[in-house]
């Protein structure tokens, strides 16, 4: 199995960017959130009604993210809908090397 590739998140810096921040990862719009355990990326809009995840709320000790429109809530580990079974949010790992940010999709 080939390892999922990391992509540079251009225009973002770990030390100077304000989060949440919009980014492009392999052509897809994502939002990067700062959680208690580090940075995490999610797809830019909610799969339910396209609410923007820029205004999403981190809950449950930053292990879940909640869309502001209709409180659809997703796990940041795998993107599974918590109160909306069958819905899934794309989630991305984010890493930093020398101040540059990289991202890749979670499985």
């Amino acid at each position, binding site marked *: 199995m080939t390892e999922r590739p990391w992509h540079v998140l251009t225009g973002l810096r770990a030390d100077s960017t304000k989060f949440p921040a919009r980014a492009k990862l392999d052509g897809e719009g994502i939002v990067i959130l700062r959680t208690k355990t580090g940075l995490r990326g999610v797809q830019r809009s909610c799969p339910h*009604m396209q609410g923007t995840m820029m205004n999403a709320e981190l809950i449950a000790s930053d292990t879940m993210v909640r869309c502001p*429109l209709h*409180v*659809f809530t997703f796990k940041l580990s795998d993107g599974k809908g*918590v*109160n909306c*079974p*069958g819905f899934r949010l794309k989630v991305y790992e984010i890493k930093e090397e020398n101040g540059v940010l990289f991202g890749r999709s979670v499985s």
Partner: protein
Amino acid sequence: MDPATGSLVLKGAHVIDPEQGIDRVADVHVADGKIQFVGSRKLTANTKVVEVSGHYLSAGWIDIHVHAYGTLGFANPDTVGVYQGVTTFVDAGGPGIGVLDQFMELLSDLETTLYAGAFIRPMGLLGLNFIEGDVRTLGEVPITRWVDFAKQHRGLLRYIKCNAIGDYGPGTLKLTKGLAEILNLPLYMHIGEFQLQNPKHLLAPEAFRIAESGDMITHLYHGNLGQVIDESGKVLPIVRDAERRGVIFDLGFGGYNFSWNVAEKAFAQDLIPHTISSDLQQFNVVRPVKSLANVMSAMIRLGMTLPQVIERVTCNPAHALSLVDRAGSLKPGLPADITIFHVETGDYEISDCYTKVRKAEKQIIPVLTFKNGKRFEADLALAQEENNWFLQIAEDHVPSRARALSERQRSFLSALAARISSINWELSSAERLDIEKALELQEIFHEVRGKQGLPLKDALLSVYASFLDQNFTMQIGLLLLRLERRFALQRLRDVSGQRPMAA
């Protein structure tokens, strides 16, 4: 529930009872849980006096569109009932004929009077916008099943609901209309396509054509496809025709169904809902709906007078639902269902379901509710508490309440696990919900509990207690379907093998 005994006078409030033409400061006398009369009388020594001057007082509010049961319901539906000034509400489509037994068993002991606006689909509403209008999920239900149910549970059903949405043609609407006629109930239709859906042929105009006098159309001011106004903002002739025929228009604010833009244009042309309802559910109670009172405040902001608003949450819904013999007015002899509220003045903001916010100067706040004479302090924050609306499967722990299950309940769970272990199911995506599988799981649930001789309520509660910290009341087949199969089987076995709590 024990109705309050003894007599009570609510003194000095501004009483608004449009049914009786009352709009003045007056006392309201209550005895044995019923209204005695509105007016002055020498009080006896035993009469308890509640001073409510400076407040408004009306008959208990009626919300003809809430979601108390099922995938959209609340852990404690009374939080959007008596604790928000609402003494009577109707579940708008939560249960269908296949789950009305579950609905009754689980929600029979609320403080707020709950009726069913049953959905045409046997499983009731699924809470999934992709398939709510899908005619293929209606299944095959003999009409006699509905007729028998309505006879056995007279008065529970107040309307039959369907959704005038999706690209499936008018078959569902006509079928539901026919059923409503057979059952002698109003037809209640949702208009407005869900956002992101774009059918070729809109069903909203068909809803206005099919509806007859007394039938109801909800989400009057929605801003999605299938609006009541045309592109220039003019109210459609077909809507006017329906209004003239006596079709009842309901507000149904909801999470997707109220647009300031549409409301203001339609209101300016005197297209006004006959009933004001909230459509409160898990996914809109935090925002934008919050409470029926907030929706009433929105109607004040739109331009309705306070008596017009009160009329639309008391006598109008009582007439629409054929409840005038028990609700909607302060007439002598009616149950003492009373809401005391004030109208605050300040700087407020009221959001619609999109991005529009209007500044408002007035806000309606319920203070006290009486249900059959029993007193409840209003508390709008209760409904907003996360454990009331955030339906989360307890994946990482066994809910503590599972320890209180009886030996028979645990034995049932063991038998259920054994029986469904031969069934495969998977919830791959919301778009591809396997409703046939949900029905199969539900049938198995009934089969096992039948063999075990366990009462329905005990069986339902045993499954809920295994997976949910709070007492949400989802359709049992849907609950099982949404669980990951291996996890579900393991949890049922774990709980059935638990030692019960010491007495």
